[in-house]
């Protein structure tokens, strides 16, 4: 049976190779990316936890791998990481539910 899947864990290490087809844009992206994750008003640990939550929202397995390691490296605890995932889950759930207002508005518009 073929082991090929759309996602391969090894491809995470090849992330830097995206510059190959467009070096200038690749460089601009990685320069920006590097700046974003430097310690600023937020600590590196806080940024890694935000990235971990966003990774779950965009459902990127590479990002989940990278920011699980990244959060651990920066001293985050299991509790902090799980809370970050729940924030992602709450926003995703809330984002669906808030559209319920649209559904309710439309329903009220259509019903006698």
């Amino acid at each position, binding site marked *: 049976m073929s082991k090929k899947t759309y996602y391969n864990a090894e491809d995470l*290490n090849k992330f830097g190779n995206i510059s190959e087809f467009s070096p200038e844009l690749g460089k601009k992206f990685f320069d920006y990316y590097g700046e974003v994750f430097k*310690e600023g008003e937020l*600590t*590196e*640990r806080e940024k*890694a936890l935000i990235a971990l939550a966003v990774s779950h929202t965009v459902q990127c397995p590479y990002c989940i791998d990278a920011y699980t*390691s*990244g959060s*651990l*490296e*920066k*001293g985050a*605890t*299991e509790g902090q990481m799980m809370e970050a995932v729940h924030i992602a889950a709450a926003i995703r759930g809330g984002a669906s539910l808030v559209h319920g207002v649209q559904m309710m508005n439309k329903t009220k518009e259509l019903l006698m």
Partner: protein
Amino acid sequence: MTLATLKRRQHLLSYAKKQLDFLNQPKESGEQFTSFESKLNQTGLDPLKPTKIDIFQVNVGYMCNLTCGHCHVDAGPDRKEIMTRETMQECINSIKDTDISTVDLTGGAPEMNPDFRWFVEELSKINKRVIVRSNLTIILANPKYNDLPEFFAKHKVEVVCSMPHFTRLRTDSQRGDGVFDKSITCLKMLNEVGYGKEGTGLMLHLVHNPSGAFMPGSQESLQKEFKKKLFDAFGIIFNDLYAITNLPISRYLDYLINSGNYENYMQKLIDSYNPDAAANVMCRNTISISWDGYLYDCDFNQMLEMKLKDENLQHIRNFDLEALEAREILVNQHCYGCTAGSGSSCGGATS
């Protein structure tokens, strides 16, 4: 959970040669890991030579009251290798008239060597900066060690102690159940005699080793986090945090293999090779002496039984500083641990 040492279990990895064989074998796919020597070569550092020897690191024995999961020494209560007072005297004779500034005492738990206090006192007399690498908990392990904080303070010993994380869970998972609480008590005892406090000159540094198969993050950032968490929760203060990468040898290598993390961890170290860190590796300014008086390029090479390349320089009785500073440093695959990311040394990040 208490681990037995690899040596007690007669584990294959308790033999240095088996460890080196493992580190040099191909991946499961058959592909070879890039050799450390070739990486050095690509960055113009091969052969690796010392800069100037400033740190004399003495391993006074492998006996320890703990058996931590990441220990590169495979230290533990059943290890009997211990440095004699005669060898300590040879160390003192070798360095007393040199400009080597620092003596770094390590183990095992160096405090368990019966001549430890004598050695510290003699080193103080010849005006060397003395560092002790303490596991903290030894202070509470037996009443005869309870006054160690006062002893350290009296001789202005710089204390570098293990504290993998500011949470109980993460610390105990690496070092054994109950270690976190004991360590907190011991840190408070050190603070009480002035360690970590401004103006006392008594330096207290913590060592963070990741409790798992990942590298340490930014030392600066982790230090801020550790300082805040330990002060807020326990009122503990300290000077610096050293973030040290776990090297894939001994009990940590056993953990990596058993947990299925070995290949990924090794590849991550290789991918994170940093030429600036490589230029500042600790073996360039340090010499390591084993309990039986043999010389090594570092404590890790000591555990892998990689004695100095030149046979005439291999024992403390033949100590020759000029020749040692001209030697060639031996490297192998474990050296990736010191050159990955921000670099790693007994003093923390190197770049």
